[in-house]
């Protein structure tokens, strides 16, 4: 397989994987936010020690839900085009022509120009979404909270809650990792677009457009 094709396939595959991870984070954030809101409406959140904490948890749940919807929507929009290109790549046999490889690269570059801003959005809101899930997990897990003149102490209610905190921590780490990968991906593609712009002179010369 040609090195360009192999590299291109690898990047598209990795991008799809990270997009899938982001979709899962979005769904978990929506579910966590929604579950807390429903529980609050049913009056099941009275175990929280102070009303203030309930208000804070409610606010975080709303933000969590909103960010989850945004992450899901933006990631779905971004991954739709990449999935189309990936399907085309997978459908190609081993004897893929030079023109076909270039065609798919051009499609991806054109698509990247379209999603560049959305990618910037997901890089920002992805980790925020993960942090909100984590914060919601922490706040809902408090059994006792005391604030004295000498200090501030919190007690988590049981082992199950601690396990849940570990899971929310995993979500934060995943969201940070996906954001990191998206940043790297954006940097690589921005670099490629800059290279294309730099090489346009050669194309212009070949086309005889210098005199225009």
């Amino acid at each position, binding site marked *: 397989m040609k090195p360009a094709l192999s590299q291109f396939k690898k990047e598209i595959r990795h991008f799809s994987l990270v997009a899938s991870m982001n979709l899962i984070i979005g769904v978990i954030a929506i579910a966590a936010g929604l579950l807390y809101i429903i529980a609050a409406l049913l009056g099941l959140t009275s175990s929280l020690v102070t009303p203030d904490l309930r208000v804070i948890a409610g606010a975080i749940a709303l933000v969590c839900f909103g960010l989850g919807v945004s992450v899901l929507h933006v990631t779905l929009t971004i991954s739709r085009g990449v999935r189309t290109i990936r399907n085309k790549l997978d459908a190609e046999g081993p004897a893929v022509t030079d023109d076909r490889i*270039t065609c798919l*690269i051009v499609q991806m570059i054109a698509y990247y120009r379209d999603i560049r801003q959305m990618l910037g959005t997901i890089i920002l809101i992805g980790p925020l979404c993960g942090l909100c899930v984590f914060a919601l997990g922490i706040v809902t897990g408090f059994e006792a909270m005391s604030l004295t003149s000498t200090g501030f102490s919190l007690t988590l209610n049981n082992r199950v809650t601690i396990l849940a905190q570990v899971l929310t921590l995993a979500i934060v780490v995943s969201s940070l990792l996906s954001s990191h990968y998206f940043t790297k991906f954006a940097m690589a593609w921005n670099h490629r677009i800059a290279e294309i712009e730099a090489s346009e002179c050669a194309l212009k010369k070949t086309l*005889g457009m210098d005199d225009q």
Partner: protein
Amino acid sequence: MSGRRTVYEIYWEVLVYCKTPRSFTAIINRCDLNSKLGQEYLEFLVAREYLAIMRDKERTSYESTPKAAEYVALFSSLYQNLFDSAPGFRL
């Protein structure tokens, strides 16, 4: 092919598609162009002798000339070279 393309990408696409004779309608449909823009691009490529007009009775079609091969090859090598090296990160 849709998305934001540069004029050079559109020229390349038209030239590759016209390796076999194609009608104007087929070209603008395939390359996702409106008829006004399509006409401009084709006129440019014909003027530079990258495309030849073939008239068969009432049917007009366009075909890439041997001169177009130089542009197509340069374009392909430039775009494929972008992926010759890894971007410097691993998943």
